[in-house]
């Protein structure tokens, strides 16, 4: 391999033409409240796990919407399923159930 001292860079853009959005569809079919998130962050603000680790339910949902499935699945494993975020959500998103669905989907959607 020739070292030119530089190399092509990895493209970091969200490419929605290529993104795998099937997980989001799969979840929404089973719990349509997944679609109701307005990204206000109430869930993360009240999250017990998120105070000690970088866990954000809001970010996990966003990863799914952008097809970043591995990020979402890894993220879902940090949740302790205490359900506090359900109480805080102004859009009645069934947050706990969505985490459980992501975990359940883990097998089917692992890339």
């Amino acid at each position: 391999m020739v070292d030119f001292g530089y190399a092509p860079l990895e493209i970091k853009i969200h490419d929605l033409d290529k993104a795998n959005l099937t997980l989001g569809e799969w979840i929404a079919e089973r719990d349509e409240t997944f679609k109701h998130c307005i990204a206000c962050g109430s869930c993360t603000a009240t999250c017990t796990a998120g105070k000690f680790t970088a866990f954000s339910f809001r970010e996990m949902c966003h990863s799914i919407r952008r097809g970043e499935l591995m990020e979402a699945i890894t993220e879902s494993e940090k949740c302790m399923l205490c359900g506090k975020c359900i109480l805080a959500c102004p859009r009645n998103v069934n947050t706990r159930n969505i985490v459980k669905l992501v975990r359940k989907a883990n097998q089917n959607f692992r890339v």
Partner: protein
Amino acid sequence: MIKDGKKKVWDDYQKEIADDKFYYVRSCIRQTIWPGSENIYLRILKDVLGKDIYESENHTTCTGIGYHSEVVPFETIQTVVARNFSLMKEAGYENYNPSCVTSFGIYTEILETWHHFPDEKKKVINFLKQATNRDFVEPKNLAHTSDVLFKFRNEIAAKAKYKLINKETGKPLKVVDHIGCHYAKMFPNKGVGGAEYPQVLAGLVETFGGEVIDYPERRHCCGFGFRQYLVKANRGYSISASKKKFESMEPFKPDFIITNCPGCNYFMDRWQYALAEMEHKTYGENGYGIPVLTYEEVAGLVLGFDPWEMGMQMHQVDVEPLLKKIGVEYDPSKKFKGANGEDLPLPEKPNHINFSV
């Protein structure tokens, strides 16, 4: 703090609590870690208040710990709960009175489920019949044991020997009230005072002469949270949650913590020891921790029960400084004597938190 505003919220969240004829159900873990509290509760109800309270030797765990750690499926826990209800029916009681907040949450959740999804109940009737040939009825009244002591707080105060007042200064003791998450956070109208400003323990403390202090992290989990504790690798969560609370309450200089949940009692007590040994930090005065008491112990103390009979020597955080503050008459030499005067094994002395042995 606007006191009237809090009272208004309290008025909005009053629940029905039975007056007599209780069917008592024990907690799985309390008899090991806090051995005197359930006993004292029964004595207060029977001997002090003259109530009829019954427990069946056949009752079991509600399986809440298993349910919350996803090893017991919902159908199973519902059936176990139905069996406990069936025992109550058999004994001729209608007022279900669990000693554990997790159980209280489980019973509440299941009764609500049956209310909104009657098909679930039909399924459970069938399961119980097949498994045990039993029938059940839902309790007429479901109240946690802390609800019951709250209800009779004035009767208890009228018979009290001590008040929650610092004997030296004459000032009310400063008390942190910590409510188990499963008491009212899931169903705020099932808890006295609701979920945000619970009255159940605050009412006890104020009636007994103490002063409740409000600190920023009062709503935060004690650190038990089944998933945070059951797997050792996750225990960092558990201790961090408790630490967060201690740090937040420390500036208010609480004299003790009162909780109504087995897990909260345990973790707020034991983690103070662990934090002292890990970080050489104590949150109470003079190198002691902040004592963590159950509501039964608090009621028992003001009524003049012997602290050692109530099992208060089993606390990891030493309660003796608190007993001295209140002016409780007790015999320090009997701290590690058994019920019949025999010597109990002495605990190992911790390195970084005071504990008199």
